[in-house]
């Protein structure tokens, strides 16, 4: 770069100015840092799962599936238990929370704000307290240390999220569609089935995805309810790591959880198309 003294006034509009370049560089750096911050731990776990050791070296050496092959049957049992209970709880909680959200948004219940806040409680109250409370209820009912108990606990957590999603989705859907359906002769349930559900289906799928992810890694609450005959994978990994340290099979199982999350996310994203993902919560536009 040369600077000529006494040159005529610098010509403008000839390429981007220095501040513009600096600001672009700054943004690029900023985004790169955020990306690294978000993705680094995931990459680390995946890489470690192939190295069989958390102390990842670079360049990576000794990559292999030894950790994966060493995963014991107990892990797989817990893994499938978690998948089943997470899917079940996500499905049930949406089944309960969506009609509730519909009643609260469209029925204009005066108690709505109260309800809305009440179902937030499981999210506000520390899960530790919720766990102890549920345990004291579950023990006499024989629900602790059981599939049903774990699922009920997860549903309690999920309802809050499901209701939030449901409310947001329905508020984003102008009521005119339902009124139009009514004027055309559809009863409320028919309108819900033929108009509302198809219109907010993408939003519901995203809600299901997020609730499922939350269930996949739920820990604190389940720590109290779970037991030897109902052990979610998060609890299994935790106790194993406490007992035996970070063994290769535990890292491999963690990586598998990452794969499950990515696969579910990709499945929903592919099914809906890109415009619904990346934070888009809304139903399709009218």
């Amino acid at each position, binding site marked *: 770069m040369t600077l000529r003294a006494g040159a005529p006034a610098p010509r403008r509009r000839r390429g981007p100015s220095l501040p513009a370049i600096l600001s672009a560089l700054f943004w690029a750096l900023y985004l790169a840092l955020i990306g690294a911050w978000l993705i680094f731990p995931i990459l680390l776990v995946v890489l470690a799962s192939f190295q069989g050791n958390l102390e990842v070296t670079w360049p990576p050496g000794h990559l292999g599936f030894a950790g994966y092959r060493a995963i014991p049957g107990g892990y797989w049992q817990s893994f499938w238990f978690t998948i089943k209970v997470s899917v079940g709880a996500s499905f049930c909680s949406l089944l309960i929370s969506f009609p509730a959200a519909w009643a609260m948004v469209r029925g204009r219940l005066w108690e709505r704000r109260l309800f809305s806040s009440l179902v937030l409680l499981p999210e506000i109250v520390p899960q530790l307290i919720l766990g102890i409370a549920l345990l004291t209820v579950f023990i006499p009912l024989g629900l602790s240390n059981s599939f049903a108990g774990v699922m009920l606990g997860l549903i309690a957590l999920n309802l809050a999220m499901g209701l939030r999603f449901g409310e947001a989705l329905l508020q984003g859907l*102008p009521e*005119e*569609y339902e*009124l*139009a*359906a*009514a*004027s*055309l*002769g*559809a*009863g409320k349930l*028919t309108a819900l089935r033929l*108009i509302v559900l*198809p*219109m907010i289906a993408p939003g519901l799928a995203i809600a299901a995805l997020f609730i499922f992810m939350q269930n996949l890694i739920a820990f604190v609450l389940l720590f109290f309810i779970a037991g030897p005959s109902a052990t979610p994978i998060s609890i299994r990994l935790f106790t194993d790591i406490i007992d035996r340290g970070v063994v290769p099979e535990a890292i491999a199982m963690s990586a598998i959880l990452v794969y499950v999350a990515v696969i579910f996310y990709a499945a929903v994203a592919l099914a809906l198309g890109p415009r619904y993902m990346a934070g888009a919560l809304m139903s*399709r*536009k*009218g």
Partner: protein
Amino acid sequence: MKGGTSLKTGSQPVSLEAVTKRFGEFYAVRDITLRVEAGEFLTLLGPSGCGKSTTLKIIAGLMPQDGGRICFGSRRVDMLPANKRNVGLVFQNYALFPHMTVRENIAFGLRMRGWTRAAQADRVRDLLALVRLEGLGDRKPGQLSGGQQQRVAAARALAFGPDLVLLDEPLSNLDAKLREEVRLDLRDIQRRARQTTIFVTHDQVEALVMSDRIVLMNRGVIEQVGSPRELYATPETEFAARFVGANNLLPGTFLSDGNGPRARAAGLEGPIAANTVASGVGAPDQEVWVCVRPEQIGVERASESPRHAGLASFVARVSDMVFQGTSILIDFQWEGITHVRAERPPEEVAALHPGDEVRLTILGCHLVPRSASRPVEGGIAAYADGGRRYDRSA
């Protein structure tokens, strides 16, 4: 419209008797009594908050009324839910179902009524022809233009042979040019289907262009019912005179000296003879507004010899001129009144400039009662913004 398809509909006369809706102490709609003839296009016109949309919702069954009855033909409907009333509704945002094709949208009402697939298909074909959208039946609403969506909404509302079709400000989402086109389209579709229709709008131009009759509403009550011509030429109240079309209002007093209806208006030398008089005017010395439409004011240079023979004339000064294509709006400063507006053909007033002194001749006028409660505020009352301004000052 050539090749017009006519279509069998279930059009019924509609009657409202003393329909009332209250929100606490506030009457949104008060004692509305109204009859709409079968096949008639009736418009509920008024500023926002006048109760027109509430009335529409009550008729559609989307809001319960607090009193009164509604009948379609001889069938009383006010206790029925919306889906049992057999009313076609067209919303401001059309509310077309985005996940269904045009065909499925139009057939929705038929499907709800248990029509066979073949019968649905026949009917949908007729309707697509009626709204001139043949060939677009398999598109989704998102692939149509605003005007086309509007016509699909109309077809959907007409499909099942409703007793009545309600249009809730269906043109307000369209741009100005399209709006002109679509309002004629809608009117044409309504005529061909001979469909009893109630149209709700705050836009007086739409009301004048489209309606068989207009119901002018204000603060929950009916101000006046009449044909567009009647409402424009002979408003019954000050509100009607101010709301429908532009009007110059001169404060005056009514004279009953046996020489026909005459009034003495502020600023005019002699009494002025009125062409028409609202039914509420008649008492001696009653306070009235002398209403003069902008096109009823003749304009010429003060120095020229009088060309217009009118009811009264006076001298004023041009303050502003606005060219509108087919006419020019001219505002005048005149003593006693803030300003007066005239509308003349461009060739007639092309030589005038702001500041010129001119002679204005009143070619015709109408008298309405002046309510004592409102402050005397004469001059031009033009509500191109659909009356929202009136609403705020009221």
